[in-house]
């Protein structure tokens, strides 16, 4: 070890200060950070970008076709029927809205808890949030059936002067999701302003400069501006934190306030929130690992970042596993016949038993691999587990919604749900829509928050040099990330 305690026997041993791994590797300069991130926007995109972009546009077209076909033909083209009226639409809605949560978690909760590693991944995950919420929002809009009547959801009296039912969880959902989307956009945009100014200052005069200039709002990076900016960022983070927890709680109220066995439990809000963060982080990893490799961002998104996210997946996955077990326990302990049957049908003899085990394996068993350091260090395994989690979280919503509704109170109304080709293709199409938006984001906006990453490199600490002069580094090696000193033991 480079600087192990070498205190003499007379002097009391100085406490060893735990070193942090540097957030930006190889002591990169500010200019390097700017060039690398802005370069993604300014240079030609790699061929792979086009190989992904063209199919995703095609899939978006299929999604649009699916919705047009639905409107022109009727809601019957989707597979839902009584008693499975919520079917894939709400499954996909909850799935997509859950994906979005990691973005807000990274940008808000990790900001409030001073987790500086968030800076390298927050921009992309916030963008992911927005696109996922856009995909999510489509489903309830079309689920209402007559989509041209979707304005009935807005709090204005309709033709009969009937107001919305403010006591309904479904209306709470409308407010929660639309607030979530709006606040996420504001948060994302505020974070973008300094970086848009960077792009503006690097462009030659022309339409690009004008556009970046307009959106940068005339930003000059003055400290009197940063003062308000940082306060606004802090406030938005503080506002988004309860918001992100409330959105998925409200989504869970759609279920939990009903009387349907299997839905009617108080564990739903925390269970849904943990699941959303779980699924969201898996999607962040699924997107960021390829982005890191393709654009050479290894110094900015380090192994430490991936390791941290893998640990969060392990934590939230285990919380989700606890919730699954607690649901089973409640079904047994409540002695409610219907509740018990709902879970027996899910786990033992229902028509879709295999989905429960697919869910359990993907969400609870697979992430346990992250207890091992080698699994967290291996990009391949991280990616594989993330894919399992992505699939598992979809199965979770399917299990909750479809398998529960298939077997209702009355055996006479039991029917099995089958997805139609329109269901399938529309869902696949939303992935294309999501990917297309994300690729366009990579093409036109800085994928990493430039200003924030610059703020976490060691030379950004105004007292960085002072300590070196005073020789404090001898006592606290590497704490201030002095480039002359080894950072890692």
């Amino acid at each position, binding site marked *: 070890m480079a600087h192990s305690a070498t205190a003499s026997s007379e002097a009391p041993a100085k406490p060893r200060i735990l070193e942090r791994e540097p957030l930006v590797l190889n002591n990169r300069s500010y200019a390097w950070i700017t060039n690398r991130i802005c370069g993604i926007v300014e240079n030609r995109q790699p061929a792979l970008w086009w190989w992904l972009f063209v199919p995703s546009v095609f899939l978006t077209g299929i999604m649009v076709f699916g919705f047009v076909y639905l409107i022109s033909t009727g809601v019957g083209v989707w597979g839902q029927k009584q008693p499975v009226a919520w079917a894939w639409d709400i499954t996909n809605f909850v799935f997509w809205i859950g994906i979005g949560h990691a973005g807000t978690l990274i940008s808000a909760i990790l900001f409030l808890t001073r987790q500086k590693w968030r800076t390298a991944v927050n921009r992309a995950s916030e963008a992911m949030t927005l696109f996922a919420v856009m995909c999510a929002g489509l489903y309830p809009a079309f689920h209402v059936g007559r989509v041209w009547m979707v304005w009935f959801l807005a709090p204005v009296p309709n033709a009969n002067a009937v107001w919305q039912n403010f006591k309904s969880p479904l209306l709470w959902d409308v407010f929660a999701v639309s607030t979530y989307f709006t606040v996420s956009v504001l948060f994302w945009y505020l974070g973008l302003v300094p970086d848009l100014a960077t792009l503006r200052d690097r462009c030659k005069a022309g339409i690009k400069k004008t556009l970046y200039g307009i959106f940068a709002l005339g930003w000059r990076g003055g400290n009197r501006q940063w*003062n308000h900016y940082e306060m606004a960022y802090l406030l938005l983070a503080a506002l988004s934190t309860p918001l992100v927890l409330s959105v998925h709680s409200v989504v869970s109220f759609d279920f939990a306030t009903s009387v349907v066995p299997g839905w009617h439990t108080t564990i739903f809000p925390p269970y849904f929130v943990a699941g959303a963060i779980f699924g969201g982080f898996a999607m962040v990893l699924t997107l960021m690992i390829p982005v890191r490799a393709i654009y050479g961002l290894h110094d900015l998104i380090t192994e430490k970042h991936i390791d941290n996210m893998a640990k969060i997946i392990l934590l939230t996955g285990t919380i989700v596993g606890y919730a699954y077990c607690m649901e089973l326990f409640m079904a047994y302990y409540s002695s409610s016949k219907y509740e018990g049957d709902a879970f027996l049908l899910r786990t033992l003899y229902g028509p879709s038993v295999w989905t429960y085990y697919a869910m359990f394996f993907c969400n609870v068993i697979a992430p346990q691999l992250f207890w091992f350091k080698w699994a967290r260090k291996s990009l391949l395994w991280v990616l594989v587990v993330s894919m399992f989690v992505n699939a598992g979280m979809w199965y979770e919503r399917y299990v909750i919604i479809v398998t529960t509704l298939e077997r209702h109170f009355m055996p006479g109304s039991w029917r099995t749900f089958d997805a139609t080709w329109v269901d399938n293709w529309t869902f696949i199409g939303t992935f294309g829509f999501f990917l297309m938006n994300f690729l366009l984001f990579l093409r036109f906006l800085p994928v990493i928050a430039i200003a924030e990453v610059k703020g976490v490199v060691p030379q950004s600490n105004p007292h960085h040099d002072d300590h070196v002069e005073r020789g404090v580094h001898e006592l606290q090696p590497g704490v201030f990330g002095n480039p002359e000193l080894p950072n890692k033991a």
Partner: protein
Amino acid sequence: MAKTTLKRVHGYLAEFESASDVYHASEKIRDAGFQRWDVHSPFPIHGLNEAMGVKRSSLPFFVFFGGATGTLTAFLLAFITQVEIYPTVVQAKPANIFTTPAFFPIMFELTILFSAFTTLFGCFAFMGLPRLNHPLFASKQFKKFSDDGFFICIEARDPKFHQAETKALLEEIGGKNIELVEDEL
């Protein structure tokens, strides 16, 4: 008739090498008693507010009222429509003052929404944004601020501003590439 451009001095712009340099320079300018000056940097420098003598942003004060407006709006929207003008009774749920807890989710959401809008627009208002141009953008070197440049600009509006003395001060505290920035009238 030949066009005459009138120019007005905006201030002195000086470049500094690092966050640390600009921090210590700020302490000196603060102690010299300047008021209208600013540090331009690519990222917020920790502790610079104290070094510059800038007060904490008063944004939270306004956001509180924004949020309170949101809570009240949501409550009135729900209460007036559900209890006063059109009591909607669905699944036998009553419509009266005691149903207020059912309005809490929406009151919560609108509190956040209104607060967020107040935060963003309040922040822009405090920052004096958006604006399409600024005298500093005329400076060629200034665009480095968004990459790796650290600048201090002391404005001519400052009561302590003196063309020669201010320049001397900036030189003394380690400013490089000192430039007199002018604004076209």
